[in-house]
């Protein structure tokens, strides 16, 4: 799951693969804003067929938060 999410994040946020770790903070480390979060979610839907509900997005602080949410709700 981490590798899939990482690939989507690299493509959507235009960041380096090395930056995308489980601990990386979306806003502080990866420079994601509120629209990036929606774009990321839409890309995850395209890639995985499901994503984090938009209402849950504010709770997603790190890459790991997203990965764990998706693993728990797959």
């Amino acid at each position: 799951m981490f590798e899939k999410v990482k690939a989507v994040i690299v493509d959507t946020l235009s960041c380096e693969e090395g930056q995308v770790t489980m601990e990386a903070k979306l806003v502080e480390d990866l420079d994601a804003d509120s629209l990036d979060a929606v774009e990321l979610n839409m890309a995850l839907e395209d890639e995985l067929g499901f994503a984090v509900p938009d209402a849950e997005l504010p709770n997603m602080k790190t890459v790991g938060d997203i990965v764990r949410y998706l693993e728990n709700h797959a």
Partner: protein
Amino acid sequence: MPEQRTAPQAGPGPAAPGPARAGGLEIAATGRAVPGRVITNDDMARVVDTSDEWIASRTGIRQRYFCAEGQSAFTLARDAAAQALARAGLSPADIGLCLCASFTADNATPSLACQVHGALGLGEECPAFDVNAACTGFLTALGTARCMLAASALAAPWALVIGAECISRVLDMADRSTCVLFGDGAGAAVVRLSAAHPYWSCLGARGDGALLHAGGTASADRFLHMQGQAVFRFAADIIPRTVARLLAEAGLTLADIDCVVCHQANGRIIDHAAKKLGARPGQFYKNMDRYANTSAASIPIALDELARGGRLAPGARVLCVGFGAGLTWGGALLTL
């Protein structure tokens, strides 16, 4: 967009158009008007807690125009319409229909279209009314005009179609999530039926006032409110769908389109759609850096910029996509 009132040429249109619903549509000329006050992002940062960097990186907007004293959606509509009429080389007697799209008209009545009708001295056989489909308004009015022209119910062959907004009057200057996004302006086009200018259009709606709302006579709150993330998702879904539908109806691919003119709500929305559709660089027109979101005026302003900039030759195909409050959306594939 050269005047072609006689001897229509066989343009490079598609060989097998979809169902010929009402014939093509020729745009003889366009016009645009903006009010005098230029408001930069730095100006906005003096009113609310924001910055040029914040606004530009999230929206692509650098400045907008706001109406000054004595200016309104009507004065902008009138000026854009008069310019389009003059450029088309037409007189008021040539106009058989006057439509104006807006959600920020000066009055509940008379409509902007009737105000323009009076100001330009249009004939008594020329009906005039407003269309409110928010940011989809211009394309809704264009589709309405095409249908009315095709029904041969009009006394003269040309329709004046205007999009005009004075959104600054409904902006909550304490809400930094919306007040930096919008601007005032107007655009107009003079159109008529023409087999030499193939045209396809589609319009849709999903009655839902939760995402975008601005007050009217039954509202205590006149300000515009918007759920940005939800609107972004709506637009990101509806733009590719509308583009795909029009291309399928016309039997074309995106590579056949010279320019895509989306409603200029936000550069990020347009970038997202362009990437998703595999557009070539620059194929999706963007001018929100100078105007911000002017709702119903954004598409005709962009069409006028394209026409004046000489970027598009006769026969060029322009695919327009509108989306906005209502919810409403629509598309038009034009042949210049």
